[in-house]
């Protein structure tokens, strides 16, 4: 039996089946991401002052990914236009570039995740902070107080771990972080590193309240970061798998019903645009903080 409305629009909806389906699916997706963004809003507003991570993401990697996704949205429309023109080779080229963009996006995301797995955060006990503060200031390292935990947080790369201490390379103070307690004081002199050598800093294990990698369990920001970007990456994977199908096995439909393949690519394109728009929302929220 022939399924109706795969090519032409129904009179009552004005849409063919696939398009109606994808819009309903996207409506549910808006609710899913909407719920997560709302949760983010409340978590962000509830964070203790000065504890929400600032300037910790690699903005250039995030921007590169944004440009790649925007490019892929354009090539996706190009693939659809090529099918409309019945130019199969152009369609394959455009869809291939779109898939490649998706894969590059995932690779860059992997690089970002890897750096999170290698990054640590240390909570120094409040009463032990006096002996570390001068040196941290001198290095221009970033640290912040976490009043509810009676501790100071220092983030950085673990250089070496011994039986009773951690040797770390602390993160620098963000360039434009507004430190209200320091606003009336002169900025502490920062020792210039000679020869590009990493400045290490030693923390006694006895002075550490807790420490961990910058993974979801570390804190709310990282939980939200991995949830949102992970969910988005899964959508990219889904899109790439569907496009790979239409580039290979699914493209056989072109010989029998080219208009149906065109519709399928249009529907895939709408999904891909949505994934692109979600990323454009995520980028400023999580990277430009």
């Amino acid at each position, binding site marked *: 039996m022939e399924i109706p409305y795969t090519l032409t629009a129904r009179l009552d909806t004005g849409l063919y089946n696939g398009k109606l389906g994808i*819009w309903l699916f996207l409506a549910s997706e808006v609710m899913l991401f909407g719920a997560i963004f*709302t949760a983010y809003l409340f978590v962000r507003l509830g964070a203790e002052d000065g504890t929400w991570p600032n300037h910790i993401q690699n903005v250039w990697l995030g921007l590169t990914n944004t440009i790649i996704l925007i490019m892929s949205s354009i090539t996706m429309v190009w693939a659809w236009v090529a099918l409309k023109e019945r130019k199969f080779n152009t369609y394959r080229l455009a869809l291939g570039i779109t898939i490649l963009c998706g894969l590059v996006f995932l690779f860059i995301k992997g690089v970002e995740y890897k750096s999170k797995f290698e990054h640590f955060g240390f909570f120094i006990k409040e009463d032990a902070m006096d002996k570390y503060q001068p040196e941290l200031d001198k290095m221009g390292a970033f640290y912040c107080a976490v009043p509810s935990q009676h501790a100071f947080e220092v983030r950085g790369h673990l250089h070496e771990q011994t039986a009773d201490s951690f040797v770390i390379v602390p993160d620098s103070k963000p360039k434009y972080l507004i430190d209200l307690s320091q606003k009336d004081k002169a900025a502490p002199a920062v020792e210039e590193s000679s020869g590009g050598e990493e400045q290490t800093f030693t923390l006694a294990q006895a002075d550490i309240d807790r420490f961990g990698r910058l993974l979801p369990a570390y804190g709310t920001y990282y939980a939200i970061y991995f949830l949102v970007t992970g969910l988005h990456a899964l959508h990219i994977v889904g899109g790439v798998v569907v496009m790979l199908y239409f580039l290979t096995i699914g493209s056989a439909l072109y010989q029998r019903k080219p208009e149906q393949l065109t519709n399928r690519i249009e529907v895939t394109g709408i999904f891909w645009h949505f994934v692109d728009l979600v990323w454009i929302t995520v980028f400023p929220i999580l990277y430009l903080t």
Partner: protein
Amino acid sequence: MSADHTDFPEEAPHVHDQAAEVAHAWHHFHGNVKFFACFLGVILLTVLAFNINFGSWNTVVILILAALRSGLIAYFLASLFKDFSFVFRTLAFTAVFFAGMIFLSMWDSQLKGIGNPIKDRADVTSQSHVP
């Protein structure tokens, strides 16, 4: 006609219809390119603004850029379904649920005595300092 053009004897669309469809498709493509170029421009402006300290104007700049971005997203979605009132009505329900969800969350917070998070945050910010 390009070299990869293929004919389909069993399903050859009417020449005039196809020409109109192709022209429409190209029009759509050019519209998309312009839109994404605009969006990229706004994103680059946002990144630029992120690296500049505007002092007391920070909030104003952030809000203007956020409004530009969300406006562009709304425009793009509208351009995708402007011909289909059914889809528009369906998505309107999404907006209603989304707004309802925020309202219920804030109402629930007040019932539990947590208070208005936005107002509380403003109060805390005005009193506290970063060590």
